[in-house]
């Protein structure tokens, strides 16, 4: 890994990756600033009978334009999407970070310590990889009252295996390099050698996995909320917005389509970005060291 510019440079030159990054940055900005720009709170109902199920580009009787229309309670979908973005993106990023932390920890210990600890961690990782994620997520979520915290924890706890495998492999290969031996010979403690000398070299593939993990986490949060087992209304998340629009699919397809499209776009951008990172790292590997 040749510093952040070495990885980011080629990604910036790849138009698809650059566009994906731009979309994600915009989504994040909207999520962060949106509620400040919007007027009415998203749970403000008003005259439901007159305002509900206004089609996209339609106006409510009071003359307010609704770009994406309104839902069954007459709430503006753009505003709901902005507020949902805060929840969905936060869950995505936090869950991916949790998975990254567990994965880096487990992978680093397994790869660096070797022996019995390594065998145990590898066995648990393999076993965990064989478990279908969504049924297992359902199980974890069912154990507690569905909500924001358990959604993040459950997605993080079921997504660390890929990171752990990648980090373990990298740590094992870096461990034998001369500079690691040199650090040890200089008297650095194992934890310091691992944290300062080995891990920085092993993080690149973990970051790719994490980029993909954000997309996966967004997709899973929306999926769980869609099943009614994730973020609970009235807190808007993209997933429970899809679920609430599903009942009105005939009458007002836009209520489900708008959040579904946003989820698809966010997940797609994460996956395209991860592809670009992967190509960059693979390209670096081909070059002689």
């Amino acid at each position: 890994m040749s510093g952040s510019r070495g990885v980011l440079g080629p990604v910036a030159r790849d138009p698809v990756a650059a566009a994906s990054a731009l979309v994600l940055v915009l989504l994040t900005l909207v999520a962060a600033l949106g509620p400040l720009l919007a007027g009415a709170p998203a749970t403000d109902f008003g005259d439901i009978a007159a305002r509900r199920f206004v089609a996209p580009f339609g106006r409510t009787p009071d003359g307010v334009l609704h770009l994406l229309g309104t839902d069954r309670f007459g709430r503006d979908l753009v505003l709901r999407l902005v507020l949902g973005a805060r929840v969905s993106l936060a869950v995505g990023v936090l869950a991916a970070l949790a998975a990254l932390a567990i994965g880096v920890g487990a992978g680093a210990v397994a790869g660096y310590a070797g022996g019995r600890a390594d065998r145990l961690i590898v066995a648990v990782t393999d076993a965990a990889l064989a478990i279908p994620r969504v049924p297992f997520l359902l199980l974890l979520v069912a154990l507690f009252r569905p909500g924001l915290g358990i959604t993040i924890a459950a997605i993080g706890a079921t997504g660390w295996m890929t990171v752990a495998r990648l980090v373990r492999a990298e740590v094992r290969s870096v461990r034998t390099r001369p500079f690691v031996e040199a650090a040890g010979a200089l008297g650095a403690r194992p934890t310091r050698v691992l944290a300062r000398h080995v891990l920085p070299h092993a993080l690149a593939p973990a970051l790719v996995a994490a980029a993909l993990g954000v997309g996966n986490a967004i997709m899973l949060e929306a999926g769980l909320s869609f099943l009614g087992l994730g973020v609970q209304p009235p807190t808007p998340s993209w997933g429970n917005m899809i679920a609430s629009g599903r009942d009105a699919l005939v009458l007002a397809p836009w209520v489900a389509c708008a959040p579904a499209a946003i989820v698809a776009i966010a997940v797609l951008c994460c996956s395209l970005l991860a592809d670009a990172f992967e190509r960059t790292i693979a390209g670096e590997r081909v070059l002689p060291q």
Partner: protein
Amino acid sequence: MSRALLRRLWAAVPTVLLVLTVTFFGLHLAPGDPVRLFLGPSADEAAAAQMRRALGLDRALAVQYLDWLARFVTGDWGASIAQHRPVTAVLGDAFGPTLLLTGLSLLLTYALGLAIGAVQAVRRHSRLDATLTAVTAVVAALPAYVVGLGLVLVFAYGAALWNWPAWLRLPALGAAGIGADFLGPAARLADRVRHLVLPTATLALVGAAGAARFVRASTVEALRQPFVRTARAKGLGETRVLARHALRNALLPVVTLAGLQLPALFSGVVFVETIFAWPGMGRVTVQAVLGRDYPVVMASTAVFATLVVIGNLLADGAAALLDPRARSTA
């Protein structure tokens, strides 16, 4: 071969055991009391205690675990708390539809994925290749529930709205029409097939897009190998070079991938069965989770994990059939 298979089978035991253990302790340590849920809030403490005793929920957790594990392994999966019938019966009813749905979509996934990927590899760097690359990248990233809702919108509601011919108006709910039991055998089969189309297509579309990306990469790689040049040099036709030499070698990683993708397939099944009200294991699991039906949740999670393990073994076996080198080391 059979010894290697046995060893793999033995290695799969810890996975299933881990699932069972986590499931058991997780469900029992979590808040939420199945007895209360079953009896309702108005039941008095004596009735609750009596039921707890009847279900064995008043014993020490370790005792409950070992007892449950022993009975589980011998095929006694207890009774569904919500449905008042054996778990084996509940899951037995749901197993067939899920196997049908996943089996069919797996077949379609790899038939489609192989075709698309092979065409892309042969015509690599053409406009067709670029288009298919873009399309598969987008479709592969779509969540199953988004694709499913999209198909429902178009084929169930849109078809009626736009006056499409009757055969294109596909049912979006359930595994059979309301009057299916009164139909003749041929009509009943047709009804079944029509109900299968949308859920199968949802799973197969997403899967095929992912598979095509992988097939393209591994076929391009195989076409670069010296043995392909050799095959061409000895005068074989391009079709034969592709089918017998390049694709056969490109298939190996694809078969392994198919095994590794099974967990994702079973994750998709949960959403697809919920959207299309397909009476399978995914839907049963979601309902059991919502109702805290412990025995059903535990058994279905274990069945899902076991299916993944069996699927991986089958994938290994298929890889051995394709590649003599894999037989000795498996």
